[in-house]
């Protein structure tokens, strides 16, 4: 009985990872892609995306769920890049400049996000999601109407022909791969952007260190139980806001890293995908809404992107249609987030029910007798 239970718990915990592994491995042969190509893609994508996914860790730690509001940080980073291009600041200096410009913006946006989420406790994820859309509207307004008119843009080449507003696509060749190319390690035919990974490693170290600080411990307490944390004297509201601010700033930097690798900026839609990709990655890596660690980040990025690299071609070759492959990819993408969320919710309900059983001092094997009272799960 116990072994079977352990197995089913293991399955439900890692269901998403397992599903992804199976799908990716199954789709590799029909895709016609070589393992070498896939590995190089993975290396590149790890460098490109990990920072963004790491930005999600602290809010989960602080009990605020998946921070869909990280898109706000991405928007701040993009504004920073627009200014960097405007002043023709190239190379890694351009990236640092973009980060410095985006910093105050992301702090402000993160603060707003935190405030809003504090007023929607228990619904942070949906709220973050909608807030990202709302801010997108503000961002569009700012970049399409304010930049170039109220905010003078010296570089006329990036402004729309009507005189104000930024062009749809910004060529980032002045900063293209300037982080990646600082030091490139080429071994066994693979090309590895060393400095990018160093930056990511520094962030991991920072996060590990941060968890040990008082602020980090406070966040953990808030994440576990807000009421208890409050009575222990922790400023719950403020701590939550700080968690979101840090996450937003990290998202700002992460988006800059992402864009420098891509090489060009789709001014009005580059940030649309950011939240989705990051959240999907961390969930695929085995994280849940209330617990995530650094391993989840890297495993998740690798699995998710491996699947994304392989499935369009596999779909095309298997079903004879590139469209189907594309739709299939998105279907799995959204499906996996839905599945993870469902499994998580289901697991936490079971855990709560079992905790209640424990209180009643009933032996686990006599579950069935008390079925009726636990069927409705307690919360509305």
């Amino acid at each position: 009985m116990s072994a079977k239970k352990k197995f089913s718990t293991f399955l439900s915990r890692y269901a998403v990872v397992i599903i992804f592994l199976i799908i990716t491995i199954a789709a590799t042969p029909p895709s016609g892609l070589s393992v070498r190509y896939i590995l190089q893609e993975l290396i590149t994508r790890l460098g490109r995306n990990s920072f963004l996914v790491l930005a999600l860790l602290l809010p989960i730690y602080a009990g605020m769920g998946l921070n869909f509001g990280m898109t706000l940080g991405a928007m701040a980073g993009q504004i920073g890049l627009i200014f960097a291009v405007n002043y023709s600041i190239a190379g890694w200096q351009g990236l640092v400049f973009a980060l410095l410009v985006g910093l105050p913006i992301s702090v402000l946006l993160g603060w707003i996000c935190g405030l809003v989420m504090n007023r929607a406790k228990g619904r942070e994820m949906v709220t973050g999601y909608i807030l990202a859309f709302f801010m997108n509207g503000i961002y569009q307004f700012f970049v399409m109407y304010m930049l170039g008119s109220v905010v003078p843009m010296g570089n006329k080449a990036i402004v729309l022909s009507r005189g104000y507003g930024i062009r749809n696509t910004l060529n980032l060749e002045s900063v293209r791969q300037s982080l990646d190319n600082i030091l490139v390690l080429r071994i066994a035919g693979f090309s590895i952007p060393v400095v990018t990974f160093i930056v990511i490693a520094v962030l991991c170290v920072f996060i590990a260190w941060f968890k040990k600080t008082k602020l980090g411990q406070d966040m953990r307490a808030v994440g576990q139980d807000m009421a208890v944390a409050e009575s222990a004297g922790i400023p719950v509201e403020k701590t939550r806001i700080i968690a979101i601010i840090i996450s937003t700033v990290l998202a700002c930097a992460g988006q800059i890293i992402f864009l420098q690798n891509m090489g060009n900026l789709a001014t009005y839609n580059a940030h649309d995908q950011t939240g989705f990709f990051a959240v999907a990655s961390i969930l695929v890596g085995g994280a849940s809404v209330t617990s995530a660690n650094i391993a989840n980040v890297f495993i998740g990025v690798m699995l998710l992107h491996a699947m994304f690299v392989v499935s369009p071609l596999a779909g095309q070759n298997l079903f004879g249609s590139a469209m189907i492959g594309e739709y299939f990819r998105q279907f799995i993408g959204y499906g996996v987030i839905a599945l993870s969320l469902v499994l998580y919710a289901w697991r936490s309900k079971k855990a709560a029910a079992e905790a209640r059983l424990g209180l009643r001092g009933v032996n686990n094997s006599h579950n069935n007798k008390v079925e009726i009272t636990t069927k409705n799960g307690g919360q509305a």
Partner: protein
Amino acid sequence: MNGSTSEKNGQNAQNVKKRRLIIRAALLAVYVLLIVLMIHSGRRHTILIDNKDPHDGSYSAIDGMEVSIDNQEPLEYYRGDRDKAVVQGQKHIIKVEIFDDGRKIEKSFAVPLWTDMVIIYVPKLVNGIEPWLEPFTVTEQLEESQESISPDEEISFQSMGSPQLEDLGKASPTP
């Protein structure tokens, strides 16, 4: 006893506040300093290297030479040529090697921070005529094109038509 403790507490609170203020001011200073540094070292400029005969005939273009900026690849210039080099930062070195008499000339120069494009008239540089470096703007370009052949292509960024926005509530992002 009590009086001095509460005084000390008050004093401590003051110290903490002062310390916080100093740290914040310092952080702000670092922030501004970094921005300035980045602009200085990161700003890109285009240097037009000109080897054309001037309209007033005060000097003549050089028949053949090799010119390089900083550590970039040297390019060959013949009479009437003009090319460009893209550099970052303000201080640079231009190296000229003339084919005819094998002269090698090296000069360092600084580009003003907020000037995007400058033009170096190499014949003037070689013959010691000042000024051989000038800012280059679109108006000058237009003047030139009215007088003679149109200049080389300028740097331009890719662009696409008019902006399109997401439809309201387009909530399904495409990965």
